[in-house]
């Protein structure tokens, strides 16, 4: 499989945080969900890929090339949509159009204008006065009106209304339809990811703790609930992120340990959200964490 994005042993040292040995590969034509709690290292990773920040170690390749080999081609291949508007607040759409036109050879002005018209974005208003949804639409217009290979979204769907979010998810699926482009999608909205992601990478405290295809992850675990008295010592040891309450217990179990299952327990298929919560709980010694 040809890779669109390859991170090999990427690290970044800060005073109070370190991203360590991030090794991830995203094949062409696929969507990767990049998830983790606030401050886990998602945006840092994205900033390193975008070369807004310099990695302390490791190699990053986009469509086979590193930033050092060809910084211009490297950046031309990336489309980025951030969690907040990155446009200079003094600018208007005509300014953005003019900058894009002179920056990107592949910029399609007609398409850009069409998107602006379809999304009813005000041409004459300063961008700082745009609503959150309008700013996201403008970021999409800027990215989709030129030829990119890798689309990176950093919490881009946060704060969007359900209609717009649905529209964005459709756009993303259209984007990879040719099989030649890929998406790295960092989000808190795990429901969105379940709809469209092919791969899931889970980061916690600057380290990757899960990296697999979404289907494999979903098939690798079952969620078990049961009465307290039915919880054997062996099962307790094998369960992931177990939580015990007065009425019983619940936790995840790897399907490799299916031999421990019995009719005494309620067995459910977990979603990505639940898998992540239990994994975090396990990592933090049984305490529940919110805000993945």
């Amino acid at each position, binding site marked *: 499989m040809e890779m669109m994005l390859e991170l090999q042993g990427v690290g970044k040292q800060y005073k109070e945080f370190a991203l360590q040995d991030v090794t991830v590969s995203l094949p062409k034509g696929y969507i990767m969900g990049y998830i983790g709690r606030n401050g886990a290292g998602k945006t840092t990773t994205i900033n390193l890929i975008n070369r807004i920040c310099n990695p302390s170690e490791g190699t990053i390749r986009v469509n086979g090339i590193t930033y050092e080999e060809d*910084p211009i*081609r490297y950046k031309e291949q990336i489309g*980025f949509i951030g969690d907040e508007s*990155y446009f*200079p607040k003094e600018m208007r759409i005509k300014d953005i159009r003019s900058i894009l036109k002179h*920056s*990107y050879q592949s910029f399609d002005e007609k398409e850009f204008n069409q998107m602006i018209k379809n999304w009813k974005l005000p041409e004459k208003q300063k961008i700082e006065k745009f609503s959150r949804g309008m700013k996201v639409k403008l970021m999409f217009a800027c990215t989709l009106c030129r030829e990119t290979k890798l689309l990176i979204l950093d919490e881009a769907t946060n704060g969007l209304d359900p209609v717009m979010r649905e529209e964005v998810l459709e756009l993303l699926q259209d984007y990879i339809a040719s099989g030649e482009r890929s998406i790295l999608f960092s989000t808190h909205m795990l429901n969105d990811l379940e709809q469209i992601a092919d791969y899931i990478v889970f980061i916690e405290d600057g380290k990757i703790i899960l990296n697999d295809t979404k289907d494999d992850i979903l098939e690798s675990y079952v969620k078990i609930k049961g009465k307290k008295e039915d919880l054997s010592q062996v099962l307790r040891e094998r369960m992931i992120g177990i939580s015990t309450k007065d009425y019983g217990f619940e936790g995840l179990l790897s399907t490799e340990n299916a031999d421990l299952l019995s009719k005494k327990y309620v067995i459910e298929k977990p979603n990505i959200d639940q898998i992540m919560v239990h994994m975090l709980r396990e990592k933090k010694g049984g305490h529940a964490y919110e805000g993945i």
Partner: protein
Amino acid sequence: MKAFNYFKIDCIRCRYQLIMAFVIVVVFCFICNSAQQGIGFSCGYGFFLAVIFAGQPFNQEAKSESGFINMLPGTRRQRVIGRFLYALLGVVFAVVVACAVLVSVAIRGMEIPESTGAILIAMTGAALFLVSIQMVIMYSAGKGKSQQLMTIIQVVPSLLLFFIIMMIGTYVEEHNGFNYAWILENKAWLSSLVLAIGVLALGMAFIVANRIVERRDYA
């Protein structure tokens, strides 16, 4: 060409300040000149404003813009060149206005002092030198600082200029034997020397700025 694009971004970002500076410099220079303040005095303020406005884009930009500006296809060096082009725009503009003032003086049939050319060249050199300091300070401060802090930093080189002039004035007053005649005799190479120092400082500031941008995140 890519560097020119970054220059254009700075111009768009600071267009209102540019227009304001243009109007102020033109009006001020011509009013001072009409009031017989001397060409050097009139044009000196043009250079003073040029130094202040050289740092304006730093004052306007935010860290969050890195996702747009830093993602445009271009090298970091091109980004720095663009910023330096903007910084030079004010100096070039001050020179143009100074030349326009000279033309207007000539048209009115007034006498242009012999040392005017040397003074303007020296002023250009001094302005380039101060712009260089400005750029190094601004790049060292980095993005995301408060606007108040950036505004203070922005006027530091111009204030330096005033302090230096005051110090020279005091020195001249205290040393009665100061040889003006020698300066006037050697004005051509002295002004060229100031200009050369300015150009050299600008080159060094460019190298320093590049190193800062290469190493710093969000730069």
